[in-house]
């Protein structure tokens, strides 16, 4: 018999699927997946691990961009490889856009715009009458955008 103390990998996947609730949970109207969005921000924004929800403060404005940002498509629903649970979003593009952004916020549009992740671009990124695309990392347990290891 072999015994290894571990956090169950299935539990990690379940967390991403919203299966477990250790505290007061929300009342869901359906069993549908939530809608996640990505909003762009200027370098004047203050976004970090303490960010709790989407805000319009210092959100990007310009041709081809609407407040609230783009709706994300889940390209890979929560899964696991070895002991890491992960998921992936499809790349998202603002077309024919004239905008400058320095960072982005992924948030849960269904659950009161609660924050998921802050993405720093490492500097200002600009599109002029062109496409502005956020490319998500390789979809695997070592690189995916959201992982629980």
């Amino acid at each position, binding site marked *: 018999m072999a015994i290894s103390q571990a*956090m169950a990998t299935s539990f990690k996947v379940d967390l991403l699927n919203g299966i477990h609730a250790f505290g007061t949970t929300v009342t869901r109207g359906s069993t549908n997946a939530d809608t996640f969005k990505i909003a762009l921000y200027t370098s004047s924004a203050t976004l970090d691990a303490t960010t709790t929800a989407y805000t319009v403060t210092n959100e990007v404005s310009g041709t081809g961009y609407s407040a609230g940002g783009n709706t994300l498509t889940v390209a890979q629903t929560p899964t696991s490889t070895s002991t890491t649970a992960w998921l992936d979003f499809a790349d998202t593009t603002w077309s024919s856009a004239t905008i400058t*952004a320095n960072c982005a916020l992924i948030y849960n549009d269904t659950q009161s715009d609660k924050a998921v*992740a802050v993405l720093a671009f490492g500097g200002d990124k600009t599109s*002029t009458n*062109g*496409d502005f695309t956020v490319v998500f*990392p390789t979809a695997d347990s070592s690189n995916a955008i959201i*992982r*629980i290891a």
Partner: protein
Amino acid sequence: MIDNQGNVLEGDVAVLTTEGRGFTPEEIADRALAKIMYVSKEANPLIRDQAEAFKESIRHTLVFYLKQAVQSDRTTLANRLREAGHSDLIKILEN
């Protein structure tokens, strides 16, 4: 001591932008390739070379069909413009 550590991790995104144009089929093909297959730098050199060669052949196929899609969409757009009485604008769509 038994350590039962778990980490929530966040991957790094890249941002690609264009000025005065959209992305080319070649640029989009490169992005698609990165999603389709990843060749580890630490892989056995023989396997890595084969994987890289396969990746390159996929790239050619992707570029070819992406160009076909662009051309086909332009045909659709040309017809829309013609139907709307703007046949003169069709030349703009030609390379």
